[in-house]
């Protein structure tokens, strides 16, 4: 990722900061593949406002990795520079128990207006194009406190009215189906992209713009989103990372994965 022209922090750094703001002291989070941004956000939260926040790096299943340094792969051995580690089989149990993890970081090759994620197939499952890598633990979104969705791709291919294949449940098909399902999980809470942060209208359960990242125009988001996104004007600007936050992020990221 290249540096933003008009600022001295990158999109990924901003996204990590925004996500960190969603993490509260005492909570426990879990994440999977491709997770440098959530890893950074968790460690950042721990080192700032949430010292009792815990997180598991879903591949190695290390608990509170020190991010010395931040790594690109979810299963990297260096993630075991951590408070401790547990077996993967235990993490799957804890995900299923449903009251252990407050936060699940998710993503998708498609994300729809109700926050459903698709990591499996665009088009029909039998003849997909593209075929995605697969769901891993995303079906557990139905049993987690709340889901934080992040993606580097804010475009009309990713943000669609309805996912072609639901691999990670969001608010399903909207308020009626969500209510009928009576799931124990709280559903998606936020979506963060390089353009903006989005939350969900508690009535319609549809995605709405929460804040525009510095330098992004509202129309850019509307144009890049494949469904009619809810807007409540005036839309605030996303707070940029503070100098302290940037110092922390850069100290854990000598390889510049977030730059």
């Amino acid at each position, binding site marked *: 990722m290249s540096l933003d022209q008009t600022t001295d922090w990158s999109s990924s750094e901003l996204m990590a900061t925004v996500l960190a703001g969603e993490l509260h002291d005492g909570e426990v989070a879990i994440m999977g593949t491709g997770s440098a941004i959530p890893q950074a956000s968790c460690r950042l939260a721990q080192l700032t406002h949430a010292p009792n926040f815990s997180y598991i790096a879903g591949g190695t299943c290390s608990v509170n990795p020190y991010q010395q340094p931040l790594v690109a792969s979810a299963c990297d051995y260096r993630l075991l520079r951590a408070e401790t580690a547990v077996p993967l089989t235990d993490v799957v149990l804890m995900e299923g128990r449903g009251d252990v993890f407050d936060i699940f970081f998710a993503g998708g090759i498609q994300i729809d207006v109700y926050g459903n994620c698709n990591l499996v197939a665009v088009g029909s499952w039998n003849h997909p194009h593209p075929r995605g890598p697969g769901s891993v633990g995303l079906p557990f979104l139905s*049993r987690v406190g709340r889901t934080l969705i992040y993606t580097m791709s804010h475009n009309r291919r990713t943000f669609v009215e309805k996912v072609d294949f639901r691999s990670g449940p969001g608010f399903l098909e909207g308020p009626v189906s969500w209510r009928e399902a009576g799931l124990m999980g709280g559903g998606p809470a936020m979506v963060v992209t390089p353009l903006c942060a989005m939350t969900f209208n508690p009535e319609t359960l549809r995605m709405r713009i929460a804040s525009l990242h510095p330098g992004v125009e509202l129309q850019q988001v509307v144009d890049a989103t494949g469904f009619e996104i809810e807007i409540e004007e005036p839309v605030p600007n996303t707070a940029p990372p503070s100098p302290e936050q940037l110092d922390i992020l850069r100290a854990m990221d000598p390889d510049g994965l977030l730059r």
Partner: protein
Amino acid sequence: MGASKIVPISDAISSIVEDGSFVAVGGMHLHNNPMALVREIIRQGRRIGKLLTSPCGAMNADLLLGAGLVDELVTSYVGFEHLGLAPNFRRLAEQGSIRILECDEPYITHGLYAGAGGLPFIPLPRGLEYSDIPKVNPESYAYAEDPFSGERVLVGAPLSPEVALLHAQLSDAQGNAVLLGAHFLDRSMALASKHVILQVERIVSTEEISSHPMGTTIPAFLVDAVVLAAGGCHPTSSHAFYTYDEEHLRQYLAMARDERGTDEYLTRYVHQTTEALYSQSTTDRISGLRYEGSLEERGR
């Protein structure tokens, strides 16, 4: 004390992996893939009736797919993380020329538990039925009535592979194996599979194993063959020993964009070489990939 199970890699594959069998392949993402065993399977042209990956398959599955040796794939993910999609998996799936048993991580994990424990089937946590996965995989997923609540619940079929191909960092000659670093689902696969073939970085004495009895271990009596394969995870990592070879992986991803490039890769790195030669040719690269300040001890 017991007899040594160390065998040449060619014998391990030829004598244990039968054509058409259900094979589990260990490792996860770019780590601990038992690539020496995978390459040897390709050299011997063994057909795999059903291939099971950990929740996250990578090169271990993609190369076997590229070699055209897999009839059915049981997986919840095949990819190369930040390096990109799995080219052969993607191509075969988009062409419709591979049968995929689409799964999720909880089913693969619990299904192996059921297979290991002789449980006839395994109920899954409520809520998992809200993904579309069970709809496209009626062979692995079904619904049963919970006799306690009367509710209809999603359940999975047990996973009982015939052979597990696994990488362990250390093992004695009898097959008492220690997984340094993360374990992924490798121990689950060992427990659920009828046969286990281990490739190992280093053979150690039984005394060394005994000195940490609670170190994560696959006991020898579950293991059929031990193959010495130092560097045998290349181009993926072997925890506590070396990291993945990003340059080589990127080369693979570039070559494997089409069938011809995949064939070229297979010719150069599999068919025209042996594991001994492969190991020799990568020794220097692997030296450069060693974890900084890694302590094998730490991984326990």
